[in-house]
């Protein structure tokens, strides 16, 4: 199975990369830009009998290593066989 996880700094943590890119977009004339947040995408390929098992396993991986809950939040974007 393949799972895709999106990880971002929490809203309460300033994201200097996103901030710099937002300023650059505005400078290029994209005055509609209000905010940019830059995160990361992790694809995990794993063996699991059921999607539900994979979902639980991914949750544990995020908790143990992939995500630092002090500064980051994550979303399991997709999971498919």
């Amino acid at each position, binding site marked *: 199975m393949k799972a895709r996880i999106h990880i971002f*700094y929490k809203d309460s943590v300033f994201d200097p990369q996103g901030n710099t890119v937002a300023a650059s977009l505005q400078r290029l004339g994209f005055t509609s830009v209000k905010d940019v947040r830059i995160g990361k995408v992790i694809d995990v390929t794993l063996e699991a009998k059921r999607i539900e098992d994979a979902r639980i396993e991914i949750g544990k991986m995020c908790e143990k290593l992939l995500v630092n809950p002090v500064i980051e939040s994550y979303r399991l974007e997709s999971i498919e066989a």
Partner: protein
Amino acid sequence: MRAGVITFPGSNCDEDCSFSLGQLEGATVCRLWHKDTHSLGELDLVVLPGGFSYGDYLRTGAMAAISPIMASVKEYASRGGRVFGICNGFQILCESGLLPGALVKNQKLGFICKEVTVEVADPTPWTAPLSAGTQLKLPIAHGEGRYVVDPTTYSEMKKQGQIAFRYLEDVNGSLERIAGITNKEKNVCGMMPHPERAADLKSRDGMKIWNALLHQTRGKA
């Protein structure tokens, strides 16, 4: 004092830490490897040095925080053992949960490598006998040194006197200029500035090279 200095793949201040600790009267230094799993109980101090452990993959310190030796470090700390993390070592201690908060990208994104002035903030065993307000000139060298922590934890840390060091001026956007902290029990300490890089020089022979260049160019000024 028996001190242990851990080398993770990508540590690059382990040699400097070992050398400067070894200069202390009565100190012996043993080198530890990230795969060591033996007890650290014999040691008076364990140092996690600076560097770029595991190439900073995933998050700074994240991979090192789950390396085999960290189980021993946690066990050692839980029994009151002194653990000191410098720069990447500080990041590892936060990632492993031995210290609160986290270190994230500097406010202005750039890697900062310069000498800064740090002041002793709360009096802790780590800085005794230096009194609060004592200023120290120490180099920093980091891209991810902006200390963050949630407001509830921070007010608890202030109450417990866990803020060991503050920068005199804001350098990287750290919460209230925090440069170093301790855990509640005060036996674990982490700081971004590098004391080992402001301690001693192993060799001054580099001056001979500069002098040779001076000699070569003499009269050409």
